[in-house]
């Protein structure tokens, strides 16, 4: 590599556009489009008795009203179960518009199209839907108890029973020197991208083609879904993800009802139609994640080494299961983290509730798994009177144990085999970074100031970059521009920069010459999507392979011109030259011109490539057999299995024992995502992840009441942390390259969020000496906990009281 930008903190080239208001988001498109708005269910569970639209018909500017009765063909069928699984025995999905029954507040019932959104909402207000209310199931415990059923024909509310085991857990538990059991809870939160969902569709009746812009994480698959549901040929449908203002998982789900209904209306009305989700719709009509009840039994010896782990999780999947059981599988398989667990059994029962659907939100089941495993480590340490880091250290997979096979099956259907890592290294760095050994001194200092101080830590391993594949296309133009495209989409992660760095490094061209396009099916039709921390691993490697293909072709053509052997050539700063012979060179852009023999000259560059420009060999065709015109290459990367990133977080909290306010005074992160394309982007990803981790641990929850009404469906009451609530973050890096892919990289997108809840629960428990078994936790809940006669004092707190360190 001659232009060494791989690994450099190159400034994000997209930021200039995005932060100066020149991004092009969904709502910036189609100023003349008709607007769609939806009548959504106000009830969590009800039968639709009647829909009366008469009052709405007088609204000036009304264009169309659609109910389920207006849907035909595949549109009248249930939405797809996107990822089927044999253990998902009772999948259920909704319809694009409710068909007789609603199962959560916010489910779309009627679509109105009007001249603008104001008018569309006026019409919605006048539509009268009569409901017969049904009993409501809210929360994982109610679903488990199954006094009522969400779907009548599924009386136990269980959609799936996901089960994996690596041996016979019961005899090992029975013979373990020690065991402990506990139950804990984790609550719902949600992705909350700054930009909600949105769809714009335009039908061209002259050539019978449809162009759809959608704020999605998976444009190629949305395209296929639209074609299937609207019975169009795939080649008649283009789907483009414009600038997308955050995704975090919610936009990987597809097709959302609106992604089908808006194009349907555009075709039907012969007019472009747009729907832009508002914040309340996003709260009640998108997706949430994270609620689980976790029942854990662990066997261990007197040194704290785990002998067996038995986990039974009840996972709230909301009203429907369009995304299958990906989140339960990820929890089940990622729970074991960096530890060698001799025998492990996990059962995740995924249950229906009358609430918004549950699909991946950054971390996608991993924060829950980490919470289960790490809190188990804390409990073992507490029982044995050992330092929490020591118990972890004794159970870690060692660096010489890679590849390490957990004998589990991951979300991609592939074995959970850790490719590389250095977990003791992470732990050592973390202890240094946070000052773990100083904790007791800090605790005493804080006590003197009237504050309760606690420290906590959590470690994780994250399977990233699952297949099946991504592709990349690299093309050098006669102008010297290098066009790069990949099918997966961007939501602000910095793909334009990272992919350009890879191409600049692989091809030896200035990064300024590289232009990157993502998520546009016109440019690249084959892709899977942006999720599971896979963009850099999957598209990054595919693009690198494509760039290598271009380089090889460029050297071959240049070798001919320079009368040299390709092995003697290099490309640097856009110039192909003979190594060590300055002046013997040809610009890459000229190679691009020569790669495409022309009949017609339309500019000076093209003139060089025409058939009379240079003496040809009359015995050879202008384009060699097996070759193709143009300096371009398309390639794909398809991994044998996921690559496993890892990390460790530690938090120090101070608590005001009068108000029970919780202050995160230090937050330390050690992070290992293999080779790093751009450390600035990785740190940004860690920062954003930690912010969401702190949010999930201390602030955010979905406050459903017993009737299934979401009481905090606005940014006023849903407490996403402000910058003022996010602690300063100290980061240290470790790099154990992945042996699985050409660039040696692992995913980094989700890591920051994973251990937040576990580490903060540990720190708060350490500070107050009471067992924390439900997260998130707020000051009012902490106040209830510390004064409740039923709350359990930790053994550590008892020992401290006994020794007088902290009475």
């Amino acid at each position, binding site marked *: 590599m001659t232009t060494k930008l791989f690994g450099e903190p190159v400034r994000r080239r997209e930021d200039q556009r995005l932060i100066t208001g020149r991004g092009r988001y969904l709502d910036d498109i189609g100023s003349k489009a008709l607007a769609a708005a939806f009548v959504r269910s106000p009830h969590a569970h009800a039968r639709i008795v009647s829909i009366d639209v008469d009052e709405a018909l007088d609204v000036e500017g009304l264009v169309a009203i659609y109910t389920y009765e207006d849907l035909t063909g595949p549109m009248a069928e249930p939405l797809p179960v996107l990822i089927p699984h044999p253990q998902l025995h009772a999948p259920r999905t909704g319809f694009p518009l409710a068909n007789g029954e609603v199962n959560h507040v916010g489910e779309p019932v009627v679509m109105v199209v009007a001249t603008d959104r104001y008018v569309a909402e*006026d019409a919605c207000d006048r539509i009268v839907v009569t409901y017969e209310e049904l009993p409501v199931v809210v929360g994982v415990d109610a679903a488990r108890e199954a006094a009522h059923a969400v779907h009548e024909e599924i009386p136990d509310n269980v959609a799936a029973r996901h089960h994996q085991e690596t041996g016979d857990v019961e005899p090992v538990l029975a013979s373990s020197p020690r065991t402990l059991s506990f139950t804990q809870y984790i609550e719902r939160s949600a992705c909350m991208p700054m930009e909600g969902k949105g769809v714009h569709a335009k039908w061209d009746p002259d050539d019978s083609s449809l162009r759809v812009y959608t704020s999605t994480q998976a444009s190629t698959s949305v395209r296929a879904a639209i074609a299937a549901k609207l019975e169009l040929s795939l080649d008649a449908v283009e789907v483009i993800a414009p600038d997308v203002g955050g995704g975090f998982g919610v936009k990987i789900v597809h097709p959302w009802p609106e992604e089908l209904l808006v194009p349907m209306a555009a075709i039907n009305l012969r007019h472009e139609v747009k729907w832009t989700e508002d914040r309340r719709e996003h709260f009640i009509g998108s997706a949430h994640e994270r609620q689980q009840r976790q029942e854990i039994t662990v066997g261990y010896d007197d040194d704290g080494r785990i002998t067996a782990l038995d986990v039974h999780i009840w996972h709230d999947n909301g009203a429907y299961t369009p995304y299958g059981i990906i989140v339960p599988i990820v929890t089940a398989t990622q729970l074991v983290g960096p530890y060698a667990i001799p025998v492990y059994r996990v059962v995740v029962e995924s249950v229906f509730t009358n609430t918004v659907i549950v699909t991946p939100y950054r971390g996608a089941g991993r924060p829950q798994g980490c919470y289960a495993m790490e809190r188990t480590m804390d409990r073992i340490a507490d029982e044995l009177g050992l330092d929490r880091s020591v118990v972890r250290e004794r159970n870690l997979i060692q660096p010489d144990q890679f590849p390490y096979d957990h004998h589990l099956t991951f979300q991609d259907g592939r074995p959970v085999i850790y490719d590389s890592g250095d977990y003791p290294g992470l732990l050592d760095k973390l202890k240094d970074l946070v000052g773990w050994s100083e904790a007791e001194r800090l605790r005493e200092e804080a006590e003197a100031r009237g504050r309760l101080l606690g420290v906590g830590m959590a470690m994780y391993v994250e399977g990233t970059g699952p297949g099946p594949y991504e592709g990349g296309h690299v093309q050098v133009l006669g102008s010297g521009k290098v066009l790069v495209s990949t099918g997966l989409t961007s939501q602000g992660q910095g793909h334009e920069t990272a992919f350009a760095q890879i191409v600049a490094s692989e091809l030896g061209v200035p990064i300024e010459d590289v232009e990157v396009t993502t998520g546009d099916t016109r440019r690249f039709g084959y892709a899977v999507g942006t999720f599971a921390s896979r963009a850099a691993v999957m598209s990054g490697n595919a693009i690198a392979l494509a760039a290598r293909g271009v380089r090889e072709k460029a050297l071959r053509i240049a070798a001919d011109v320079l009368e040299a052997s390709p092995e003697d050539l290099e490309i640097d700063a856009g110039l192909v030259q003979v190594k060590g012979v300055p002046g013997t060179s040809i610009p890459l852009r000229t190679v691009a011109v020569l790669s495409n023999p022309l009949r017609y000259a339309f500019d000076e560059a093209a003139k060089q490539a025409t058939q009379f420009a240079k003496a040809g060999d009359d015995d050879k065709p202008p384009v060699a057999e097996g070759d193709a015109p143009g300096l371009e290459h398309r390639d794909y990367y398809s991994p044998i299995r996921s690559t496993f990133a890892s990390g460790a977080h530690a938090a120090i909290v101070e608590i005001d024992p009068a108000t029970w306010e919780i202050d995160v005074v230090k937050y330390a992160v050690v992070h290992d995502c293999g080779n790093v394309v751009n450390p600035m982007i990785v740190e940004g990803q860690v920062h954003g992840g930690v912010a969401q981790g702190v949010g999930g641990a201390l602030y955010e929850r979905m406050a459903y009441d017993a009737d299934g009404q979401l009481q905090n469906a606005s940014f006023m009451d849903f*407490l996403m942390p402000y910058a*003022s609530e996010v602690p300063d973050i100290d980061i240290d890096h470790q790099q154990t390259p992945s042996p699985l892919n050409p660039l040696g990289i692992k995913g980094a997108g989700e890591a920051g969020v994973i251990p937040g809840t576990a580490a903060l629960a540990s720190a708060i428990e350490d500070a107050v000496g009471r067992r924390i078994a439900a997260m998130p936790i*707020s*000051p009012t809940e902490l*106040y209830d906990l510390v004064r409740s006669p039923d709350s359990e004092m930790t053994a550590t707190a008892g020992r401290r009281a006994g020794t007088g360190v902290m009475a």
Partner: protein
Amino acid sequence: MKPAPFRYADPSTLGEALAVLSDEGAKVLAGGQSLLPLLSMRLAAPATLVDINRIPDLDAVEVTDDAVTVGALVRHDALLRHGGAAAVQPLLGRATANVAHPAIRNRGTTVGSIAHADPSGEMTSVLALTDGSVTVATTAGSEVVGWRDFFVGPLETSIPAGAVVTAATFPALPPRSGTAFAEVARRKGDYAVCGAGVVVTLSEDRRVERVLASYVSVGLTPEVHDLTEAVAGSPAEKADWAAAGALARTLVDPDTDIHASADYRRLLVGVLTERTLADAAAEAGARAARE
């Protein structure tokens, strides 16, 4: 989240505004920081919005030795930065500093938030604590209404239909007095889970003579609690402020919501009372020494 249709009027005199306000379902728009979200969520659908921002002379802060009078178009931020106002009634600056975030303080008006009568608003509580009043204009003329007669319930005042609140008047801090204001909020700038404003007045011999407190997000309307009996006659620097906090806890009747239980709010009433009284007493002592 788009408002229902409404008529918009932007009169240039108070008289014109009052004329439009006499229409059925008319509502005053000042800073819009509470009203516009309510409109967007269709929780309110006034027939007419009367935008008073073009009416001259409503944006003045008038400071006399006895009181600070704040016009209907004075933004929170202007009051926060008004040194003269703070000198006469320090609670004004201290409380407005706790109102939301800068972007909201730049737009939102102090009088508007009082007229909105949200018990989670800081300035409703300060109007009560300072024994303030509002000036209410109708086509029949203007009248001054004391805070006790003004606040009727949450988001409800005694202001008649067609009237507009043109000013709020906050009496000056009495001699030998000090104030303090503190809040506990889930996030910086959020509506307080609980807020406390206090005034401590000392006697000539620097003993506690009078202790008043008013709370934010506690109760349905602003109230002023007299905590004097807990600490009356104590030397300012030795007063048992915890006793005053304990008394306060018995006087309030907070509600539970998704952010805090009633018990937790009561706890905070005690803690914030104790903490703010200590600060206010210190200030009272310092002011007494200067006076």
